[in-house]
């Protein structure tokens, strides 16, 4: 470490954390794709991938290597700079929220006072990436996918913000660590079940997962906004999607499931990461199961769900919470 002495220790810590977090994003995507295939298989009473490695655990790794090795095809009439920019734009804002996620009491890259707002702001950039991808592809499927995606994101951003707000009203802080600490006695899912439900439903829509996967509905739009992407461009969108799922599930864990709280483990300051990961992957499992359970909704049903059910209910929920907190 002698040669790095000219750097401030805080900077070194940040750099190491960011490297680890990018590693986590990749690892999470590998695990998630494998889980997705296996769970899908077992729900349909088959086995899923079995060929590469024992029970096919290296299948996703091999797929990733295949994606990296593939040729990047850029169609002739696309808008070249934007077409190349879009996958990066989709991937970067997904890594940034990981900075403020409290994996345990001590494992956190940085505890911002405004951590929650930070995450929400970063997820706003993601929409723009989908838009850029869809528009620059110069393809009707892509354009429709992007338009659907944005209409969906605008509609479901509101219930997410409102349900998050009802928790913030109770804790009086935006700091992720502070919200977790406030749940040492009781998890907020017991106090705020409605907010949790709304948050979870809206998040499935926000991450474009089935049954709300209209932006990439394969039977109507081939692949939606990433129809024209091949190789690692597609791979980055994929990584971004799974990273996003991890982020929203970890916010749900922090806000409602008590974060890293649980039975005390050895080295609890660091070991509590096991609790956190367990809760996050439980929610991710639920998301995967939902994808393989429900059929895709129609677009008007989607909009009705957001504007007629989720938004009014979450508004009422916020009002009731505010009144009870003030009493």
């Amino acid at each position, binding site marked *: 470490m002698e040669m790095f002495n000219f750097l401030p220790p805080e900077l070194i810590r940040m750099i190491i954390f960011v490297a680890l977090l990018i590693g986590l994003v990749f690892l999470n995507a590998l695990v998630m794709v494998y889980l997705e295939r296996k*769970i899908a298989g*077992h729900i349909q*009473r088959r086995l899923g991938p079995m060929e590469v490695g024992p029970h096919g655990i290296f299948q996703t790794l091999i797929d990733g290597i295949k994606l990296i090795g593939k040729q990047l095809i850029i169609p002739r009439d696309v808008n070249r700079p934007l077409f190349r920019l879009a996958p990066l734009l989709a991937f970067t804002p997904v890594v940034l929220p990981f900075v403020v996620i409290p994996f345990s009491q001590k494992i956190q890259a940085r505890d911002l006072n405004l951590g929650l707002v930070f995450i929400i702001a970063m997820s706003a950039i993601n929409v723009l990436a989908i838009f850029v991808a869809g528009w620059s592809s110069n393809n009707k499927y892509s354009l429709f996918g992007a338009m659907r995606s944005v209409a969906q994101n605008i509609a479901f951003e509101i219930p997410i913000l409102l349900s998050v707000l009802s928790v913030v009203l109770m804790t009086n802080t935006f700091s992720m660590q502070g919200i977790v600490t406030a749940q040492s006695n009781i998890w907020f899912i017991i106090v705020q079940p409605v907010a949790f439900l709304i948050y979870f439903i809206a998040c499935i829509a926000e991450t474009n997962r089935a049954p709300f996967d209209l932006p990439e509905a394969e039977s109507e739009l081939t692949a939606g906004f990433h129809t024209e992407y091949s190789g690692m461009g597609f791979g980055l969108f994929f990584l971004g999607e799974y990273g996003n799922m991890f982020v929203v599930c970890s916010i749900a864990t922090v806000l409602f499931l008590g974060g890293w709280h649980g039975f005390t483990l050895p080295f609890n300051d660091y070991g509590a990461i096991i609790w956190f990961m367990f809760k996050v992957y439980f929610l991710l499992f639920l998301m995967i199961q939902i994808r393989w359970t429900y059929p895709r909704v129609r677009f008007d049903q989607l909009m009705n769900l957001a504007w007629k059910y989720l938004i009014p*209910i979450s508004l009422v929920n916020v009002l009731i919470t505010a009144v009870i907190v003030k009493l």
Partner: protein
Amino acid sequence: MKQYVNNIYFGLKSLVVGLVVTFKAMIQPVVTVQYPREEIDITPNYRGHIELVPNPETGESSCIICGMCAKECPSECITVKSEKSGDGKTKVLSLFVQDFTKCSLCGLCVENCPKGAIQFSDEYDLAGFTKEMFHFDLIKRLKERQ
């Protein structure tokens, strides 16, 4: 308003029911078979290409070279030829070829054989690179099987 609450109630209920159904399906044993590694017994009704039935005593085919199978075959895909045996009194089966590329698996040959010397085989994983690979020489196949 009552309708609205009802919608929410029944909607959530049906969603939960759906999750329970898929969860049950997930923990039940799988029904598919990992094909190249496991194989299940084929049903007796399966119709593959035809093959000669060996005579249990001699092990040779019990075909009497009447030619009924070739005559009845609607796609004319069976060729039967015989030649005089060594002493010149009996005929010996010298060629029994089925062109499987034309066969429609109708089963008339099996039904019409007076000696019951033809049956359907249970082979289902046939594959080949040329048409000629499906011109089966049934005498050779019979010897290979024994």
